[in-house]
């Protein structure tokens, strides 16, 4: 009986020890997506992907300005993937000017390899859906 109990204990310890040494480390962080425009920003479309294939997208939330606090549109298939297209527009009169955080993308990073997210601005617009010049920037885990 004691032998059997010891065997089970050893097997359990061995299993946990084996599992902990094999499982890659997992951490969670977020990517802030900013759009900068000289004119009032009413619409944007951004593509975000991880070049390093190290992260998966687990959540998406909106931005800081009241015009973009709602989560942007995205394909639900992007969840648990490493690429997403974010898009949003508003017909509100109060619009952000200059640099503003338009979205926050939560990601899970598995393994030691750091992610390498790249953002591309497809288009941006102002009042009346008029196209404007703008730029996109991203920052990992920065800000509130």
């Amino acid at each position, binding site marked *: 009986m004691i032998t059997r109990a010891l065997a089970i204990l050893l097997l359990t310890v061995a299993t946990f020890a084996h599992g902990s040494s094999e499982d890659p480390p997992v951490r969670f962080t977020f990517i802030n997506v900013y759009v900068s425009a000289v004119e009032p920003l*009413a*619409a*944007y*479309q951004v593509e975000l*992907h991880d070049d390093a294939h190290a992260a998966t997208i687990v959540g998406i939330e909106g931005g800081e300005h009241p015009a973009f606090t709602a989560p942007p*549109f*995205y*394909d639900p*298939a*992007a969840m648990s*993937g*490493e*690429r*997403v*297209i*974010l*898009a*949003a*527009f508003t*017909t509100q009169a109060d619009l952000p000017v200059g640099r503003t955080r338009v979205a926050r993308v939560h990601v899970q990073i598995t393994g030691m390899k750091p992610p390498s997210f790249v953002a591309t601005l*497809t*288009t941006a*617009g102002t009042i*009346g*859906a008029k*196209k404007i010049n703008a730029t996109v920037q991203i920052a990992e885990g920065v800000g509130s």
Partner: protein
Amino acid sequence: MSHHDHHPEPTPLPSRLTEVLRAAHRTPMHPPELDQRVLRAFERHHAAPTILARLRPRRVLAAVAVLGLAAGAWLIVRAANYAPGDLNRDHRVDILDAMSLAIAAGDGRQVPDINRDNLQNVADADALVRQVVMLAARGST
């Protein structure tokens, strides 16, 4: 001694004639610059004509007209091939088209029936946005 071995002695030229012939070979008949000029003129005259020289004005005009017609036809065909959601006619469907559609629908204007529900309203803007952000249509990795 055979008959063929016999060579008669050449008759010597008169000394005056010899001097004149030698003098004629010493002095060139014309200066070398003239030679060069004649050679260059010859080369120019017989050189292969360039492409521009071969072109005939009428043929050039005809070619330009054909190209112009082809470009016009291409533009007409391209203009007629706007995607249903390409409201701003920039040959791509993006969030600005969805925004335009939402504004137009809000104003009660005619909008394309994107979701094919036989209604033309703001729901078509939502359907267009879903198309815009869809990964599969844009080569998901």
